[in-house]
């Protein structure tokens, strides 16, 4: 818990730190983001300015931010964890009451130069907070009910706020990220078993309470679940997204239709093709080879993160890295399951590819934290 734990003399300092940055990770992230630029360029019908250029600018800004975050010693971030969490939580409360309404949900605060999505911020501040918590906690007490209840509350409180926005996708991701950190920290598997059982119970009650005054979800969320279960029931309505996405994916075949040749996206059959459904365009134009390669790149990013976590003997750092990696992974898993018709459409973007500013920035800040942990790891 003290700076003295680090052997400062061996730790890099000043600009030399740049040499100790996990460069393969930077390259991989840039590679995936570049695939995104390519796809945005293609979806816009060969127009750079529509989506690709703004996305590139944001990526560049994000990279700068990532390096800045990486240069700052990890213990600073650990000390900031509580404050960051608090700020994010207050902002979440703030949007709940004063936020702009977009897409039927209160999601952002307009600061003038950027639309701040506190729910995005919360994803990493929650991980930081939990990592810091477990760093502080004696590991023998990890599974004691009281000490389990604290992180559960830390996770559930923002999750509920996000769910009320309502943003089902992000709240789900928050829950999973919190659980991942708790899991990595060594919380007894019994708890997870119990929660899983409870989850099943909730799912059952969600369906049984449908149509009553106490129904949990919005009607549109129920409909999404319905159409997920049987997309063909309403092929021109709610099932349209899933069917068209699958057609785009499937018609790509082994090697795809070629760059800028995707008929599904170019002719507008694909919904939200530049945001949540961007993967379908990639799969359509570059086929199984392209789609699988992207999956490989994602796996590599996560792999490098996990290896970095192994290498790191600092508990906060390791948990932080695992949390960020898990968060990143859940994004990918939920998004891909969704576009491939394995999960209901819940509005989760594909990290680094989907068009969108604050998600990209927050993600790169997350990687900045990973880098900071890596650079400043105990040696």
């Amino acid at each position, binding site marked *: *818990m003290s700076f003295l734990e680090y052997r400062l003399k061996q730790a890099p300092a000043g600009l030399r730190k740049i040499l100790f940055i996990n460069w393969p990770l930077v390259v991989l992230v840039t590679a995936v983001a570049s695939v995104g630029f390519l796809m945005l360029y293609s979806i816009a019908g060969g127009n750079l300015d529509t989506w690709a250029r703004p996305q590139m600018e944001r990526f560049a800004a994000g990279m700068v931010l990532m390096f800045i975050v990486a240069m700052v010693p990890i213990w600073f971030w650990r000390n900031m964890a509580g404050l960051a969490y608090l700020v994010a939580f207050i902002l979440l409360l703030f949007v709940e009451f004063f936020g702009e309404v977009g897409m039927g949900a209160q999601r952002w605060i307009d600061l003038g130069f950027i639309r701040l999505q506190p729910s995005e911020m919360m994803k990493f501040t929650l991980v930081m907070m939990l990592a810091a918590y477990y760093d502080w906690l*004696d*590991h023998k007490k990890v599974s004691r009910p009281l000490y389990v209840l604290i992180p559960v509350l830390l996770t559930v409180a923002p999750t509920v706020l996000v769910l009320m926005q309502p943003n089902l996708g992000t709240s789900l991701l928050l829950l999973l990220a919190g659980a*991942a950190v708790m*899991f*990595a*920290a*060594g919380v007894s598997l019994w708890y997870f078993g119990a929660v899983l059982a409870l989850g099943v119970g909730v799912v059952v009650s969600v369906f049984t309470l449908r149509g009553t005054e106490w129904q949990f979800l919005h009607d549109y969320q129920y409909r999404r679940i319905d159409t997920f279960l049987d997309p063909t029931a309403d092929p021109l309505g709610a099932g349209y997204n899933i069917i*068209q996405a*699958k*057609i*785009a*994916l*499937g*018609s*790509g*075949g*082994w090697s795809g239709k070629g760059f800028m040749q995707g*008929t*599904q996206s170019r*002719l*507008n*059959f694909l919904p939200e093709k530049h945001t949540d459904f961007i993967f379908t365009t990639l*799969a*359509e134009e570059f*086929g*199984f080879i392209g*789609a*699988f390669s992207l*999956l490989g790149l*994602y*796996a590599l990013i*996560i*792999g490098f993160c*996990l290896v970095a*976590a*192994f290498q790191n*003997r600092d*508990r906060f750092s*390791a*948990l932080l890295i*695992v949390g960020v990696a*898990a968060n990143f*992974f859940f994004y990918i*898993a939920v998004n*891909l*399951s969704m576009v*491939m018709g*394995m999960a209901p459409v819940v509005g989760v973007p594909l990290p680094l590819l989907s068009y969108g500013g604050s998600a990209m920035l927050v993600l790169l800040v997350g990687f900045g934290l990973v880098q900071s942990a890596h650079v400043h790891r105990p040696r």
Partner: protein
Amino acid sequence: MRRTARDSEETSRVLNRRTLMLGGAMSAMVAVLGVRMRYLQVDQADEFRLLAEENRINIRLIPPERGLIQDRNGQLIAANEQNYRVVITREAAGDAELVLRRLAGIIPITPEELERTIEEVKALRAFVPVTVAERLSWEDFSKVALNAPALPGIVPEVGLSRRYPLDHDFAHVVGYVGPVSDKDLEALETPDPLLRIPKFQIGKIGVEKWMEDTLRGRAGTKRIEVNSAGRVMRELERQEGDPGTDIRLTIDAEVQNFAQARLGDESAAAVVMDVTNGDVICIASSPSFDPNLFVRGISHTDYNALMENDHRPLANKTVSGAYPPGSTFKMVTALAALEAGVATPDTRVRCPGYIEFGGRRFHCWKRGGHGSVNLARSLSESCDVYYYDIAQRVGIDKIAEMGRKLGLGQRFDIPMSAITEGIMPDKQWKQDRHKAEWRIGDTINASIGQGYVLTSPLQLAVMTARLATGRAVSPRLVRTVNDRELPVVEAAPLGITAEFLSAIQRGMYEVVNSDQGTAKSSRVVEPTMVMAGKTGTSQVRNISAAEREAGVISNDQLPWNRRDHALFVGYAPYDAPRYAIAVVVEHGGGGSTAAAPIARDILLRALSDGLPPLDAYPASQRGRIESMLNELPLRDPATGVTTVRTRA
């Protein structure tokens, strides 16, 4: 609170173990995603590729331009004209109903039409264009174009639609086109996909219907790429279809126009045939109607007016009307008797004004009788008793045989609707039809074209053409298809003894040209146009014995629909026959007064280039004829405008 190194070791181990588990779970999930990807993109690729193509490619038909119909000289009878119309697409309109109501405020749309269109728009898929209004004036069309910003989804279009510039003259011949009905589709085994195009028009009756396959042409196709909204993005491939084939009829539009005008308001029919090749020069049924009304979709009021008219404008009397031929049938009876050898042209029969068979008395039209009558006189003065006598000697079967030989009781294959076969009765026919013995009285009635005998004006014209030539002339209505003359088969000789035939022709000459002839007032004095013919007056009611005693009520005193039909058949020129004609004036009274003058005028019109030459009429009639001709509402061939011409 400092942790021991051991503690830290332990913590790391747990963390690493849990991280490993997490990593394992993540790998498993990645594997699942990969497998799913492979399943969709490799295993099911073909199916999805097909679906993507179906999404993207749409095949649209390009309707071909319908073939034109012209008269024998190339005058347009059925044309295609530019049609300004307005089409709505629901997908582009947003609130289609609102847009349509707004449109109704700009151009004239009846509320009834508006409701129908709204229904249609709602029923069809969002991107299917629906025609809202057609045949707009240029002014209305511009108004729509001007107001385009307020009318999303409304597209002004220019298409082709059928127009009949000679309106009334050819309504019965050419018919009209109309939108394909479900009934039309059911009637076809493999309907042309063109017929599924909304509001595609096909021939409904007449030449338009019976030559539909020739006129329609073949649809072109275009493969187009559409976006998710169904909007056309680009054309991938275009295959031009073949436009419909133009056809020329045998009809002379000007003669037709003259005939139609000459028939005027009478419920009547006139058919002129070229005896040399069977060309139908004119086939007019009166009163007529404007076929353009039907193309546009006729209003209830107009339709009811047509239906309720007791002169039946919608009926094509030339081929659908079946009339007792009356005395115009006498040539058949006479020829049958001559050919059978029961009479010669010189055989004489005494006519006391009636004849008795089996206790029944059959009257001649002339109460006092004609005295001693030979063939020529029997025709020219139309003595009935002569025919009663020879008919009962030759028998109905021989008469029917001759009738059929001359073209009665059969259906001629011309492209017109509702062609009647008429009835040429014989013993077998009565047995089949009425389950009764043929009686001598039936023969007597049939001998003068009454009783069961029914003929159409077309059949009478064919009969006359055959009598004039001795050949089996058959009518033909189409002269060229795609500018290629259809071959004229020379008609085979009928095999009637020439001597008998010329005796009949001589008799027909005297009907018009002898001083005793029933049609003597309709003679032609111009030697190159001399007409021969036969009048007919067929009863549509029975004259009871009591009425006969009291004196037969004259036609003038009867209600219109109880009066006799007036008929006339004839041909000209007598010595070198060119045109045969049959005229039927329903309830017109006597054939000599109501039908023969009309026939003469039309025949003369057909034989000359312009109006019938006054020189051809007897001097005493010229003044009356001239003013009559001047008052005919004829169409000016140059402008197409129908005017009552008045000569100074």
